[in-house]
C-alpha cells in the first residue's frame, strides 16, 4: 500500500464509522407519549 492508499483507507474507515454511529443514533424514534387514559 502506498501512502495515498493508506490515507484514503483511514478516511474511509472513519467516515463509515461516523455514518454507522449516526445511523444508530438517528434511527431512534423521538416519542412524546401521550397517556390516553386506558
Amino acid at each position, binding site marked *: 500500500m502506498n501512502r495515498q492508499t493508506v*490515507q484514503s483507507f483511514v478516511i474511509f474507515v472513519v467516515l463509515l464509522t461516523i455514518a454507522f*454511529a*449516526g445511523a*444508530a*443514533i*438517528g434511527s*431512534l424514534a423521538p416519542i412524546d*407519549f401521550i397517556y390516553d*387514559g*386506558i
Partner: protein
Amino acid sequence: MIGLDFPKTAEKYFAGWSWAVLVAAIATTTIAIASTNVFLKEPRWMQLSGAQKNPEPRPERVVLRWRDRQDPRSFTTPAETNLKHDSFGLAWISGSSISVRAKKKRHQFQGRTSYEFTDVFAAQTRRIDGRKIWVHEYMIQGARTGDLRRAAAHAANDPLVDAIVLSLNPVWLYNDWAAYTESNQRAAILGMTGAEWGDWVNALKFSRPSSIAGALLGDASILVRDRQAIARKLPASKSFPFPIFAAPEASTAHYPTVASFYGKGESLAPPSMKAHEKYRAMLLRQTLKEDGQNAQFFCLALHSLRDSAKPVLLYTAPLPQGASEDAELTAFMGKWSALTQRLVSKCGGPNIHLHAETWQGVPGERVHRDIVHLRYGQPVIDKVSELLVSDLGLNVEKRRNVMLYGKQSKPEKKADD
C-alpha cells in the same frame, strides 16, 4: 466552491482502490465497531441513563427495572440494580393498572397520592420464604400484550427474580387494535434470552429494521446498545438538530373514535357501566381467538414463564363494581376467561397459576378512577398476597403494625428492615 467537489475528491482518494481494499476497509470498520466492548468499559452514567429516576433500591424495597420508553434497552440488568442475590425477588409485571392515584387523604399511601401496588406490597411484607424481599417492578405505562411478553421474558430469565406476578389487563390482553405501546423497545426481545421464532416473526411485523439491527448488535457493542444514552449527551443545536428528540405533532387521528367502531347506538352501556362506556366498548373489541395476534404474544410470554420454572401468578385487574350487572360484559368476560385458561393450559406449565376471575373484583373496598385504574385498591394487593401463599406455596411474612394509609402514616423503622 469551498473545495468540496465530491467527484474530484473521491477520485483523488479512491480511484486507485481495488475491490480487495474496499472489502478490507469495510471489514476493518466492522471489527473496530464490534470490538469496542474490549477497550470500552460502560460507565455508570450510561448504565443509568433511561432508567427510572431512582433505579437503585428504594427504602420500600422496590427496585424499578423498567426504563424510559425511548431507551431501546427496555429493562435494567441485574448488575445495574446493585443488588446481591441474598433476598427474595418478586417481579410484578403490569401496565399502569398497578398505579394508584389517591384522591382522599385516607387513601394516600404514607402521605403519597401517587404510588404503585408494589410500594404497598413491599411496605407490608417483611419476608418471603424466610428471606427479605425486593419487589422488582416491571411497570410499562400503556403496556400492551407485546410489551408484557418482553417483560415476561426478562423477568423469567433474571437471576434476581424468584417468583413472578403478572397483571392481565381485561381491556387490552387480546385487543388486536394495539400490539405494543409506543416505544423504541419493541425489538429488544430479540437480544434477550428466551426469544423464540415467534418473536422474530413479530419483530418483522411490528419493528423497524434499525431496531432489529440494534437489538441484535447490542450485545456485541456497547455503542449500539447504549445509543440512546450517548445521544442524550450529544450537543444538539438549532442549526444542526441532531439527534432529534422532539416528537412530531400529535395526530388527532391517532386513535379512532370509539363510535367509529360501531353502528348507531351499538356502543351504549347499561347504567351500571355508563361511566366507563368508551373503555367498555374497547374491551368488547378484543379478538377472542387462540390465533389472534395478542393471544400469540400471550402464548410466547407463557412459554418464557413456563420455562423459567419459577412460581408465577396471573391475575386480572378488576373491573368496576358495576361490571357484574352488565350482562353483555359478563358474557364476554366469561369467554375471555375461558380463552385465557385454554392458553395457559396450552402454552404454560404447572408453575403458572391463573386467577382470571379477579376481573369480577375482590372482597373489600375498591375505588375506581376508570375501568382498570384505581384511587384505592388495598384488597387487590391483599388478594395477590393471599394467592402467593395459597397457590404458589410461598411463606409470606407480613410486617406488624405498619400504618399504610393516611397522610401522616410512615413505615415503622426497625434495625432489621
